[in-house]
């Protein structure tokens, strides 16, 4: 990290004019009026429509594909199969095990087998029916324990480790002696079911291959740069002949952060037919494309002293990865590496094993790899507090990691507002007056968490910046910003505009942002790992600061004053010592252009070297961590077993809240999503390898009626390295929702829910078990 990557927390011109204001979004009105264009809103003359044929079997060898009858159908322009796109890819360079269409095997129901381009969707669908595929069925692995136990038949033939996708074992400190000497040991088994992103926009692409030999792909992706690289690799086209553009994006949450089959298929079909090709997944296909949150079976042991101070944590985790690697290597590390805050513990060991199964592949979903362990661990802490007779807040306070600390696994933590987060939710929820005192059936629970603001691990190792920005200043007073960042609805472009306006003393309307177009914009690695605000923000400040001196000196020279007297503010330049003297920005830009040259600048950000000095030590190492605490209030109906979440208080330390309205939106959206995962959502694959209900009705997303009251409490611990002190807000605030809800159910009716989702059936069963335990003598008597 160079000096230019640290910009300090102070306002550039004395006071903030835009930061902290909660201005409306750069594309808000475009979205509100229907003018914003998403991928499926685009069309081109002569455009063809493409469809994918998918495997109906979870595990099978492909013996033969006959697409003759499909190709013969009038209106069909091309049919492609795995032979046409045999080059493997995968988001991580170490585990490239996917092909756009199955080459010799299918590995889950829904694995793409062939793609058709035709004049319209109906014709393309009709053509799919005419493709004959000869499958040789293989034993399907649907239970991760079976995949762990045997590697035959292998899901991926070339893997040495049977059906194991990744195994990570790491230990820090003396775990065994800590357990031997502990006053209390809490043990428990926890299950995290699978869940999926369910962004409302289905995946969609439009590909055009121009007569100049340039392929342009508009894709609903959150990782333009990686898609660019993957297309080049798979299609064998040099990258400078490929342009990837992300149009307005209708939600992602990690579900659009892999390269997907449709991106390659539509591109090749466009090349083969010399016509633009669009492919739009159906909702059912989106469920099978998946990459959602991994199911995990977790066993935790937590050791503590008599005062509740944590002595050691020991975890074993079995991760169901589904059919392909995707981000699985990182998931496997994250499942252990991200647990080491916001509490201090001196000894830690985890063993995480990700296995392949013949199910839709899992990947990153909001809070990648760490939501599941966080659930288990925070319930463990609640049980520890119960055992020691401590208030759950008090237990956590006794174990605070604090600011400027190093975690047991060697991660550097700088700013830390967790203690304040605890205070805020404790106070806002009326915890002290209400917890344990509500009528039976109602309860409060709490939990905490920590999350990364980007990571220093750039997916493919390279020494270049993680984020780049380019500025162009116009004589009109307009600044155009070229940003590689992916605005996926979280508001990255709005933040970019805010920072540029702040740094150059402009009005917001004087800044336009061109983003996520690989021809026009410098590289940013994409919208994942909660890296946007932190990394893109720092790149913006870097670029602006290179121009500020130029602008100021041009004006100072023209006025014949000391540059320190020149201030850019609200679209004008003023002389601090002569209130009568000012210029509109446009004039200042013109002075500077005449004096120096055409005006522009680039800026970038790269992380410092971070992480522990061991294999995997950099995975999960972040330049800054965010912190969250939740209190959740529930009502449990003991007749029906139904849990209703009434309200949730969410305190989140996002560093400086550059735009508190956007931050609150991220906090509320995160909490909603976590609570829904706890209570209703379930990505379940049945014994035939079929999704239980691949629709937005059967996969139950909470509606406006089901969603609890959500209270956002923003905590700002200014981070020394974030742009003006900012950190992430998009993923961290999800984490405590699930354990806080489980802990609230305990407060309400005295049962511990450790197996997600918390369905009425599980609640009733636990209530019956608890009742039986309370009446052992009666049961024994009635049994005789």
């Amino acid at each position, binding site marked *: 990290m160079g000096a230019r990557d640290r910009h300090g927390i102070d306002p550039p011109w004395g006071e903030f004019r835009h930061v902290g204001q909660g201005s409306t979004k750069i594309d808000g009105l475009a979205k509100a009026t229907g003018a914003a264009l998403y991928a499926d809103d685009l069309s081109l003359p002569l455009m063809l429509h493409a469809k994918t044929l998918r495997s109906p079997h979870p595990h099978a060898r492909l013996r033969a594909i006959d697409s003759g009858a499909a190709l013969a159908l009038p209106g069909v322009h091309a049919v492609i199969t795995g032979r046409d796109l045999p080059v493997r890819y995968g988001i991580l360079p170490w585990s490239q095990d996917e092909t756009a269409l199955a080459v010799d095997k299918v590995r889950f129901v829904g694995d793409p087998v062939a793609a058709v381009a035709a004049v319209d969707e109906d014709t393309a669908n009709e053509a799919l029916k005419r493709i004959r595929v000869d499958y040789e069925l293989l034993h399907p692995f649907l239970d991760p324990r079976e995949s762990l136990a045997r590697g035959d038949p292998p899901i991926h033939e070339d893997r040495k480790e049977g059906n194991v996708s990744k195994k990570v074992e790491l230990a820090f400190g003396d775990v065994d002696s800590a357990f031997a000497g502990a006053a209390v040991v809490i043990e428990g088994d926890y299950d995290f079911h699978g869940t999926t992103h369910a962004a409302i926009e289905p995946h969609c692409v439009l590909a055009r291959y121009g007569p100049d030999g340039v392929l342009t792909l508009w894709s609903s992706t959150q990782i333009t740069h990686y898609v660019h690289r993957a297309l080049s690799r798979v299609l064998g086209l040099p990258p400078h002949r490929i342009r990837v553009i992300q149009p307005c994006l209708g939600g992602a949450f990690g579900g659009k952060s892999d390269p997907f089959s449709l991106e390659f298929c539509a591109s090749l079909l466009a090349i083969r037919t010399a016509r633009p090709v669009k492919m739009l997944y159906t909702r059912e296909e989106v469920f099978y494309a998946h990459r959602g949150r991994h199911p995990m079976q977790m066993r935790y042991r937590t050791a503590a002293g008599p005062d509740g101070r944590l002595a050691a944590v020991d975890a074993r985790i079995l991760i169901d990865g589904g059919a392909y690697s995707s981000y699985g290597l990182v998931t496997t590390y994250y499942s252990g590496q991200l647990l080491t805050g916001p509490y201090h513990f001196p000894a830690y060991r985890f063993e995480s094993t990700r296995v392949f199964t013949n199910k839709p592949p899992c990947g990153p979903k909001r809070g990648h790899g760490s939501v599941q362990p966080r659930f288990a661990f925070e319930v463990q802490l609640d049980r520890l507090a119960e055992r020691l007779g401590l208030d759950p807040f008090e237990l956590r306070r006794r174990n605070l990691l604090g600011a400027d600390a190093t975690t047991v696994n060697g991660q550097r933590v700088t700013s830390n507002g967790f203690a304040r987060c605890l205070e*805020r939710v404790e106070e806002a929820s009326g915890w002290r007056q209400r917890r344990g005192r509500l009528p039976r059936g109602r309860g409060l629970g709490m939990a905490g968490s920590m999350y990364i603001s980007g990571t220093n691990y750039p997916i493919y190792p390279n020494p270049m910046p993680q984020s780049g920005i380019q500025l162009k200043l116009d004589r009109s007073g307009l600044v155009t910003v070229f940003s590689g960042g992916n605005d996926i609805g979280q508001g990255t472009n709005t933040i970019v505009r805010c920072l540029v306006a702040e740094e150059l003393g402009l009005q917001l309307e004087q800044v336009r942002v061109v983003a996520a177009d690989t021809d026009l914009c410098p590289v940013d690695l994409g919208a994942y790992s909660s890296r946007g605000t932190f990394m893109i923000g720092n790149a913006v400040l870097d670029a602006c600061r290179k121009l500020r001196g130029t602008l100021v000196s041009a004006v100072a020279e023209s006025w014949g004053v000391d540059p320190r007297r020149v201030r850019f503010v609200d679209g004008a330049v003023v002389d601090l010592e002569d209130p009568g003297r000012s210029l509109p920005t446009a004039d200042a830009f013109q002075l500077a252009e005449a004096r120096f040259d055409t005006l522009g600048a680039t800026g970038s950000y790269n992380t410092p070297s971070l992480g522990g000095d061991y294999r995997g030590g950099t995975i999960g190492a972040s330049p800054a961590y965010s912190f969250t605490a939740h209190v959740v209030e529930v009502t449990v109906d003991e007749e029906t077993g139904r849990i209703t979440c009434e309200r949730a208080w969410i305190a989140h330390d996002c560093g400086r809240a550059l735009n508190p309205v956007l931050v609150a939106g991220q906090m509320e959206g995160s909490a909603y999503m976590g609570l829904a995962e706890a209570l209703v959502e379930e990505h379940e694959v049945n014994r035939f390898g079929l999704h239980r209900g691949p*629709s937005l009705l059967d996969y139950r997303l909470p*509606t406006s009626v089901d969603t609890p009251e959500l209270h956002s409490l923003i905590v700002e611990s200014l981070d020394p390295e974030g742009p003006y002190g900012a950190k992430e807000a998009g993923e961290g605030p999800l984490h405590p929702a699930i354990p806080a809800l489980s802990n609230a159910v305990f407060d309400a009716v005295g049962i511990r829910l450790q197996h997600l989702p918390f369905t009425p059936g599980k609640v009733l069963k636990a209530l019956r078990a608890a009742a039986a335990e309370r009446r052992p003598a009666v049961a024994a008597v009635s049994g005789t």
Partner: protein
Amino acid sequence: MLVRGLRRKIGVILQLQVNGDVHEVDVPDHWTLLEVLRYRLGLTGSKQGCDKGDCGACTVLLDGQPAISCLVLAREAEGRSVLTIEGLAPRHVAAGGCGVDPVQAAFDASGALQCGFCQSGMILSAWALLARNPRPRPEEVRAALAGNLCRCTGYTQIFDAVARLATAGAATAPETSPEAVRD
């Protein structure tokens, strides 16, 4: 050899009244209103999130009532007036207002527009609610929006947007102010 691309569906000519204009469209018989709006009339503001009536992203107003346009055959919309998200601002301006419709402005001001994909449907549902009930109670707001799934916001800022209008009266566009309580 058969010339590719010339295969035609036997369709019917429909007359549709959309955002005050009358359009004659020739579409396959099984096309839905959503398909006609998006792929024939270029009104892509109505979104398709599921194409089976589950998400509400395709909500339009049919004779002033919210309707799931992916479940309405195009021909069923004949003789009825269709209002889509694109029609709101022009309607507001034609009535003497300026800028966008106050409901659109309130959604913008409240931060309710994250990815925005659900929002044309959401805004139309809210608009229809406020048209028949300018001061809805919170439960009425929740009920009126229950057919529109939003995956981004947790609905809170959407409720804020409608609440601003309910208190302000739908005539004035609300001011921007941060909703969250800050430390």
